[in-house]
């Protein structure tokens, strides 16, 4: 990111006219500020796929978007080693904007004014990177996806596909029917965020309620018998700790 190279801008907005308007304004800005449009995307997922090829310096990011909103997208963006600067764009959201001011998060109001955009882009290289805790405070609702950085590429894991989350040394493993992903997040944090959909079966393990097929009594390595969780779609059996045994009964009651 040398000072002389043109600023690369990625546009993320679900509405085509809104993207087209930003394109027009960017070409106006380009007369005075070296910049180029790195790409544009209509959804957060599309934008994440574009990142490796486009390597933007700045993302102009709409907040209200279908499937994954801008505030969640920005959280996934932070998984990159050098995340681009983010400038949010929004039509109207009195509450969010108050919070943005409090946390000094950059935003532009739609319809965007040329002057404001120019100003924001001129400062873009000095923008202090977003902080995860700030984004979490701005959007306390659970994320719709978890994400991992795989060799510079952000991979999204839809929450609905996750069967269980298991803490192992430094990482948390997220298991889907096909894959395992290593997350750099804490199990306690994940448990608090996704309280409704997951169940703690062991000190180190959260299981998606929808993935539980049943429970089974087995004899463990130490010769003592214990309960294990059976899952839909994968053969693994996860041990239920002695302290969490009441969930077996609760689950049984649930089925009735």
């Amino acid at each position, binding site marked *: 990111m040398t000072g002389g190279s043109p600023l690369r801008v990625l546009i993320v907005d679900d509405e085509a006219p*809104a993207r087209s*308007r930003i394109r*027009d304004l960017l070409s106006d800005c380009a007369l005075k500020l070296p910049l180029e449009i790195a790409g544009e995307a209509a959804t957060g997922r599309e934008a994440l796929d574009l990142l490796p090829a486009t390597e933007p310096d700045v993302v102009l990011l709409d907040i209200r978007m279908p*499937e994954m909103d801008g505030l969640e997208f920005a959280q996934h963006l932070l998984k990159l080693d050098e995340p681009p600067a983010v400038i949010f764009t929004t*039509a*109207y959201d009195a509450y969010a904007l108050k919070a943005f001011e409090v946390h000094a998060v950059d935003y532009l109001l*739609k*319809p965007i004014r040329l002057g404001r955009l120019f100003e924001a882009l001129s400062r873009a290289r000095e923008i202090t990177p977003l902080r995860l805790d700030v984004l979490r405070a701005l959007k306390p*609702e659970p994320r719709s996806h978890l994400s991992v950085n795989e060799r510079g590429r952000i991979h999204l894991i839809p929450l609905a596909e996750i069967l269980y989350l298991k803490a192992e040394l430094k990482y948390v493993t997220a298991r889907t029917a096909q894959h395992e992903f290593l997350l750099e997040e804490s199990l306690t944090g994940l448990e608090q965020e996704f309280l409704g959909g997951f169940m703690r079966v062991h000190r180190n393990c959260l299981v998606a309620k929808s993935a539980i097929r049943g429970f089974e009594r087995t004899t463990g390595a130490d010769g003592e018998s214990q309960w294990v969780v059976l899952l839909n779609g994968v053969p693994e059996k996860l041990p239920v700790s002695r302290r969490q045994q009441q969930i077996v009964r609760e689950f049984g009651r649930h089925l009735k």
Partner: protein
Amino acid sequence: MGSINQNANASALPNFRNLGILLRILVIVDGACLAAALFKAGAPLALMEELIDLSATVQPTLLASLLVLAAANNWLRRLAYWPAIAAVIAIELAVATMVYFLGRSVFDNPGEIERYWIFTLLITGVLIGYFDLRGRALSPALTEARLQALQARIRPHFLFNSINAVLSLIRKNPAQAEHALEDMADLFRVLMADNRELSPLVREVELCRQYMALEQLRLGERLQVEWDLAEMPADALIPPLVLQPLLENAVYHGIEPSSAPGTIMIRISHHRDQLHIMLRNPYRPDGEHHAGNRMALANIRERLALHFDAEAGITTTATADSYEVRITIPYMKGGGR
């Protein structure tokens, strides 16, 4: 406006053809009967007897009165207040006397006719007093004020996004931008107008089409609309801005949360003297914006109640993937304006 203010505090007879008014009369008179029976009955077992005894004379009088009042309604409403009250009392006494003489052939001991007159006068007086008070509480001025406060408000979100969409068109497609601005002007003219009187249904539908054209501009093929207006009466009147806020809700909750195309369906039809409006949109349980939806619905419900009392209804049904609103209002003709 002036004419409304002039008689803001004037008393007026209730509309005896309104279902809500009729129900209120029934409830109050039967309540009085029950109270009288309770008072007269010494033991709980005697209560039923007293009630049946009373009902035998009260119910025929009551039902006959309602029939005569409903029949005379238009004539009564043309009279000034006090002559109308005198007419109502005269009607009531006549009905009571008639029922008394008809009943004399059936019952052994009908008692003195004066008792019937006094009872009739008492109940009629109480009811007239009640409707006068209620009329004052819902006096035109107050009702107008409430209606004004309840006027539909458009989401700022929509306003700014639409302006943004129009801005994006100006350079590339000025003609389309012009058209969109004209639609916006029409929409806001209605939104800012005095929307307290009924307006033609066809105008509301036209307004909704303009609104949808603006949303289509932003959302493109994500927004699909199906109108089923084959059975829509061309001359119907409805409170303005009942349909548009519902469409706005449907777009906000049903279309915007998904990047896949979704269809909003609107059907307007009538059956005898009732007008039915049905609106269905895809539903994504995202759990976020429901407060706004409830507020819009409560607003419309209250406006319908102020216009039609108990004769209008609004119901909603949510299934796993769709959300439906149904409105039933009396079919008022006069769309030729």
